[in-house]
């Protein structure tokens, strides 16, 4: 089977804790996979490794045939900003930039001219229902609006994979639902894969597949649905 993302035997430790102890996981093109588990089970570390933000000490991360863990920081970053969108729990927007500038940032960093980048960013903000706050800075946005801007930024380059770490974790149920619905509709439309770390059962229920982590290893996971 042709996997978009292939994680094999990942190990990663921090100061005194072993966050990942040999985790393997595949994500198919267009698949939505939820990673759940108690706090400290290694969910976020797994996501960061998958997105190429962290490099595991052992094991391999293969994204679209490229061995991510063997690339250097700059090469990984460049790949990430084109092919992998990232949504965190909160606070990932650049505080000095407006919502539209934040959403346009990955395109600008990739050398797109300002006008084109802004048009694309505005289109995404529109789709996610936050067009009216395009010229406001993050401090003026509500939590739900910030997260939708973050989703717009993650999707603006048309990535093949979006990695989301508790995207609704800091939001109440209703605001969380708005963000989640927008995120899912967007990735399903674009046939983008989504790897989402969550402790919100509502998020897990909407995924195609759930992978449960316990103490840094996969405790259980439904088999991949052939798509």
């Amino acid at each position, binding site marked *: 089977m042709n996997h978009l993302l292939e994680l094999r035997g990942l190990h990663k430790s921090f100061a005194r804790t072993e966050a990942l102890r040999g985790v393997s996981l595949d994500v198919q093109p267009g698949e939505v996979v939820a990673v759940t588990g108690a706090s400290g089970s290694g969910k976020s570390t797994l996501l960061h490794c998958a997105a190429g933000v962290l490099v595991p000490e052992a094991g391999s991360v293969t994204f679209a045939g490229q061995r991510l863990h063997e690339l250097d920081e700059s090469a990984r*970053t460049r790949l990430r900003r084109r092919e992998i969108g990232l949504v*965190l729990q909160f606070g990932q927007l650049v505080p000095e930039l407006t919502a539209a500038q934040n959403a346009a940032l990955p395109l600008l*960093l990739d050398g797109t001219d300002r006008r084109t980048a802004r048009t694309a960013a505005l289109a995404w903000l529109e789709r996610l229902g936050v067009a009216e706050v395009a010229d406001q800075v993050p401090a003026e946005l509500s939590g739900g609006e910030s997260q939708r801007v973050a989703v717009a*930024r993650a999707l603006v380059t048309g990535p093949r994979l979006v990695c989301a770490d508790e995207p609704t974790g800091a939001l109440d149920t209703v605001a969380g639902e708005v963000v989640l619905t927008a995120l899912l509709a967007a990735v399903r439309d674009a046939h983008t894969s989504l790897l989402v770390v969550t402790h919100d059962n509502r998020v897990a229920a909407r995924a195609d597949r759930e992978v449960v982590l316990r103490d840094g290893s996969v405790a259980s996971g439904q088999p991949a649905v052939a798509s």
Partner: protein
Amino acid sequence: MTALALALGSYRTGGRARALAIAACTAVVTGLLLVAVSVVGYTAVDGVEQTMPDGSTVFIGYGGDVANLLWDRGVRPGYFFALLLICLVPLTLLQQVVRLGTAARERRLAALRLAGATPGEVRAIGAWEVGLPALAGGVLGLPVHLVLRTLFGADATLSWVGDRDVARELRLVPAAYPAWWQVLLVVLAVGLLGVLVGALASRKVVVSPLGVSRGARRTPPRGWLPGLLLAAGIFLAGPVYLPFFERGWAQLGLMLGITLLVLGVLTSGPWVAYRAGRALAGRTSSPALLLASRWLVMDARAAGRAAAAIGVIALVSGAAASLMADLLVNARSNGHGVEAMYSVPMALVYAVLLVALVVATFALVVHGVESLTDRRRSLASLAAEGVPLEVLERAVRWEVALAAVPISVLALVGAGAVGAVTLFGDPVVLLVDLALRAATLGLIWLALLASTRLVRPWLRRAVDPTNLRTT
């Protein structure tokens, strides 16, 4: 060019004070460097004659009506070297000023990394943020040089100085301007320095887009590098040259020794602060002292660096005290007063030291403001739990005191140890020497008090209960 655009964007929001302070520091550095460059290019006339009213010419002395420091070929290299050392004053402030708004900047740069900026791009943004104001400061250094030249130029009238000899010794800046390419070189060098400092300041963020884990335990500063520098400095600056003092290489060695000593004190700041924190953390039952010493144990670098400037001031002041005592010994033995040739440079040294102490106080203030901003959450929760503001204020004062006082005492004693041997013969001079050292320590203590008094508004802001909700 995105990096440049983003760097420019940062001046709009909060980065303006930082940019202005950087430009001010680098302007002073540039002005001093331009003076130093013109000193190198200075060619003295050895014999100077004056035309008398009757038309005859009379030999009036060597070097003309300018400072001995300038015309005497023997001490000119030392003067040049001293000018470079004085550059350290604005440079140590620059080091602190670059820290202004660190928490917000690191958050912003980490957010940029997360959005897909490569380490190189983030480093470029950080470099531009300091490099551009530094370059602007370099250009502003031209008027600074002009002002120095107008006030202390070799052709200045100095009519406000009563004494003719003193006025002469104050004509310290050569009248000729440095060549255009020298000016260009200095300005570019200062700009480049800014770029380097900026790149260094953003290096922590470059590593991880997930942000700098603040408060995480860092490796403690180690003492071997400053120890090595100090040992080499003491060896090279020591009395080994006395027999060869007329030789050029001996002077060079002495300057190298002094440079190593200064670098040694500068780099040992964090280590001394860390040891002082370690020594007290387990032994004190005062909550303020416990807080202060644990702050130093967890991260002594920032406080240590700010305090190291004070250490250098103590070192120079200690050496000046020995020199002063030596001058007094000579003056007492030959019955004349101290000549202007010596007294004016000494007075200048003390003037520079006083300015340096004021600047160092501001460096401590900058450090205080930044660390209070970093710790606002924990400070706010301490205040919320009922810790009186006075205790927190005392902790802030203890932190800088623990960082600055031990290194200052060591520097003062160390600098005097060599000179003191010659002083035992004359109790009066010994007393003067000790008094000068004690006065230095007293002034340093005042500077510490002033700096903590100045950061009090920021402490009040840090304990505001709204900070309990910020992350």
